[in-house]
């Protein structure tokens, strides 16, 4: 626990700089603070404004003479609420008045440190750092006031946007102190005192959310909303098979469409495919409709290439066959293979999950302007991207700029109209840059829904195999599990032929059960299509398989599913899966702050079972299903009640319980859990992308459906009150939802869904 309030060894530095101040429209007396994060350059040192006037911002806090406080959010907003949560952590330690705090979206800049909004990391990795930023600002304001009053620092205290003199009760507000504070050297990290949880004013409390009013008024700006003078809009026809090329096309009909200005063939790209564009042919027009209409008239002939062999129906069977035979061991204890299984006590099951698309409501889009040439090439981009620094670096590469010229690429972040992992890939941004450079005009690339569904980075098609024997104590042993799927790493290294240890850390190799005999294996595969991180990543299939299998074991042992979970988890303890030879990555976190804590797991399983009352007596065609997974540093359990009649599933009620440690913005934790239930419903009931001859067969919502309102039941979220270090929130909600639904279907109907989605077996 001490780690939470201990100031770590990062240094907050005063980096008042003219450009930042100008950028914010603030007076020159502003106090501007940045944080020296690991990997920062020496630029982040406390030098005078004049010396640093030419450097771009790496700042978080600015206060103007009137007290208006601007706080940078360097992470990207896609609906998770980080625009509120980052300022919330800083403002709390600062003692700033929330009504005077304004959020400023940070651009791509490596001096912010890790900026990628992925892996549910924004809070769990920065809870201390962001609070330090606030505490440092607070102490500088206090010091400035102490200097005015000529009293020791201990005689003053900041409170609600002003500093109070404890000896005479006088006050100075933050605006009055900003200029003097900005002249001070920031305190050393060890002199910062962070608040204890009972002192929090905003962390863990309800606050007004940024963006909310603009969204509701239709004023919020997303990537597709960028409008620039002289801008062209590009619609691109991409090879239907990954690795395919344009054999021929005819621009003449497209150019006849009123508004179409130019037709441009994009450059061909090589393996590995990375997150680069797929190439193809772009139609550029003065309005979006003309661009899309022009694209339909290109009459392109494609060379499909080697991936035209990819048919998901056969491929899925290959994966299933592979996990049903001995594979490559990544974790082992005791000896499973020598065991003579008692068939009457053994459960053996294979589960599969198809490709799944992110399908954010806003299709990918980016706008770019490119000017100059050679090392003087400059580029300005507006995009919704989860990984601005990666995009910036790739764009620099695209333009032939050396990495020391990264600042030539100005990447402005818009809101993202959903992302779910799709917008961590920069292909659409590079498309805009490539075209803008060619036409020397601003270009906005807009993907159609068909583009989005047919040229995605899909959640990998997968198969999981599990086998175990029920013990006399109604637990299980002799546990054999295998998984395989096309690995995301193939994007970057087309020789990678199986999930690596990092991939297998996602709800597979970290099996926390008390077992005497265990083996975890994977298998090699070939990859034919782009796969990528989709919300919860491999925890989708691993969580589905595990949660289903525990339920199947419970049925075999004739005990409630809750009891089987508790029996398998065993004694309260911290589990070290590395001790059994598995190279576990623990979502990039240390065991010391984020252990695998069996007690927290068991309490979540009990909590969800009690809150949802899952052991209640139900009509014959109704059933409850539960499941659990610890992922991304958080513990989440789910319960779903369904009714199955005439082969039709109706979801009646859903519950999710999360222990994410400190919940900084509880309402957004709640909304993420609601969202996870609906995302999980989509995956479970209807999520499926298939390929034939290498081409994606689906195209829009009619054949790639997602959950709609009438399929969304009443939902309940239970947040555990905790002061443990924060875990992730965006992703960990999804994995337990999936098997909670299929388990419920089994208990309502006796139909065991081992192959998603459900609508292949039952109506939804």
């Amino acid at each position: 626990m001490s780690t939470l309030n201990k100031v770590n060894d990062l240094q907050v530095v005063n980096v008042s700089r003219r450009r930042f101040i100008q950028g914010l429209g603030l007076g020159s007396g502003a106090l501007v603070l940045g944080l020296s994060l690991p990997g920062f350059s020496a630029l982040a040192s406390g030098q005078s404004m004049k010396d640093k006037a030419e450097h771009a911002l790496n700042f978080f806090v600015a206060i103007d003479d009137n007290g208006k406080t601007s706080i940078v959010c360097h992470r990207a907003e896609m609906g998770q609420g980080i625009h509120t949560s980052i300022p919330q952590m800083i403002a709390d330690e600062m003692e700033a008045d929330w009504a005077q705090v304004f959020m400023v979206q940070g651009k791509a800049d490596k001096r912010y440190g890790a900026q990628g909004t992925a892996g549910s990391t924004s809070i769990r990795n920065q809870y201390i750092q962001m609070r330090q930023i606030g505490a440092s600002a607070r102490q500088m304001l206090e010091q400035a006031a102490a200097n005015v009053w000529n009293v020791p620092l201990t005689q003053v205290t900041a409170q609600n946007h002003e500093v109070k003199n404890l000896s005479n009760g006088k006050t100075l507000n933050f605006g009055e102190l900003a200029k003097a504070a900005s002249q001070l050297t920031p305190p050393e990290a060890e002199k910062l005192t962070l608040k204890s949880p009972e002192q929090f004013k905003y962390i863990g409390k309800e606050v007004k959310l940024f963006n909310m009013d603009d969204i509701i008024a239709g004023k919020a700006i997303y990537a597709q909303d960028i409008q620039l003078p002289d801008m062209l809009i590009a619609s691109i026809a991409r090879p239907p098979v990954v690795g395919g090329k344009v054999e021929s096309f005819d621009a003449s009909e497209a150019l006849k469409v009123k508004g179409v200005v130019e037709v441009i063939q994009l450059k061909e790209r090589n393996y590995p495919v990375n997150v680069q564009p797929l190439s193809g042919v772009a139609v550029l027009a003065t309005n979006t409709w003309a661009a899309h209409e022009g694209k339909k008239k290109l009459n392109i002939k494609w060379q499909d290439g080697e991936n035209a062999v990819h048919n998901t129906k056969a491929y899925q069977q290959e994966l299933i066959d592979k996990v049903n035979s001995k594979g490559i061991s990544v974790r082992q204890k005791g000896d499973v293979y020598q065991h003579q299984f008692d068939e009457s006590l053994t459960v053996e099951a294979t589960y599969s999950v198809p490709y799944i698309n992110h399908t954010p409501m806003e299709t990918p889009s980016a706008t770019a302007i490119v000017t100059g040439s050679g090392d003087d090439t400059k580029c300005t981009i507006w995009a919704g991207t989860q990984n601005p620094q990666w995009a910036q670096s790739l764009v620099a590469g695209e333009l032939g700029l050396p990495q020391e010229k990264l600042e030539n690429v100005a990447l402005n972040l818009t809101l993202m109209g959903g992302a779910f992992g799709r917008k961590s890939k920069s292909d659409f941004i590079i498309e805009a840059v490539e075209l803008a450079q060619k036409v020397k005009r601003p270009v906005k690339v807009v993907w159609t829904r068909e583009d989005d569904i047919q040229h995605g980075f899909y959640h990998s098609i997968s198969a999981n195999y599990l086998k175990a024997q029920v013990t006399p104590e109604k637990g299980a042993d002799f546990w054999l599990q295998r998984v395989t799927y096309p690995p995301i790493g193939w994007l970057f290294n087309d020789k990678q032929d199986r999930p690596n240890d990092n991939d297998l850390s996602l709800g597979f190799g970290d099996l926390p059960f008390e077992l005497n005999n265990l083996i975890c294996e994977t298998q090699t595969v070939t990859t034919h299509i782009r796969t990528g991180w989709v919300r919860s990543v491999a925890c989708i299939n691993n969580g589905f398989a595990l949660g289903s299998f525990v339920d199947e074991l419970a049925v075999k042992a004739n005990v409630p599913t809750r009891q089987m979970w508790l029996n398998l988890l065993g004694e309260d303890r911290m589990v070290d899966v590395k001790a059994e030879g598995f190279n576990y990555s623990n979502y990039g976190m240390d065991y010391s702050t984020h252990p695998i804590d069996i007690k927290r797991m068991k309490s979540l399983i009990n909590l969800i079972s009690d809150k949802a009352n899952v052991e209640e007596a139900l009509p014959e065609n109704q059933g409850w299903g539960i499941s659990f997974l610890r992922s991304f540093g958080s513990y989440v359990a789910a319960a779903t009640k369904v009714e199955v009649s005439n082969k039709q599933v109706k979801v009646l009620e859903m519950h999710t319980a999360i222990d994410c440690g400190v919940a900084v913005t509880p309402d957004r934790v709640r909304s993420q859990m609601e969202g996870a239930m609906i995302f999980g419903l989509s995956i479970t009931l209807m999520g499926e992308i298939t390929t034939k001859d290498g081409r994606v067969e689906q195209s829009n919502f009619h054949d790639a459906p997602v959950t709609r309102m009438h399929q969304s039941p009443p939902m309940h979220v239970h947040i555990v009150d905790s002061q443990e270090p924060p875990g992730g929130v965006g992703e960990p909600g999804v994995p337990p939802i999936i098997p909670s639904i299929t388990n419920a279907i089994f208990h309502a109907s006796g139909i065991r869904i081992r192959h998603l989605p459900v609508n292949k077996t039952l109506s939804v």
Partner: protein
Amino acid sequence: MIKLTINNQDVDLSVEKEMPLLYAIRDELKMTGTKFGCGAGQCGACTVHIDGQAMRSCITPISFAQGKQITTIEGLDENNDHVLQIAWREYKVPQCGYCQSGQIMNAAAMLSNNANPSDDDIDNAMQGNICRCGTYPRIKSAIKKAAQLKQSRES
């Protein structure tokens, strides 16, 4: 030349008569509150009112809107205090927010026709509007709250 009235303003547009209203609103009039989601009338992100009816502007040719009254999210209430917008703020409905203009516009048309919608009424009226973030439970709560607000305003 196409003449139409949008948010009580008369506009003349020199565009192809087949152009879907969505693109005229976004690209020609630069009003970006109305969103593209599917281009096929399947998701509701582009919902606007044409003579008070909720319509999918992505599949509505602008010629259909000629001479008609169009309302977009920007024109729903001059102070953004339509009962739905008030309720939306109270329930903190949006996550990413992208689909919300369409959700609100669709719900507004429903409330005009049905002052006291049941859960089933809401499901039926709103199932054409997709939200991928999963705000359905809050949308439903907010619509019911807005209906109450509307009734208390009118009584």
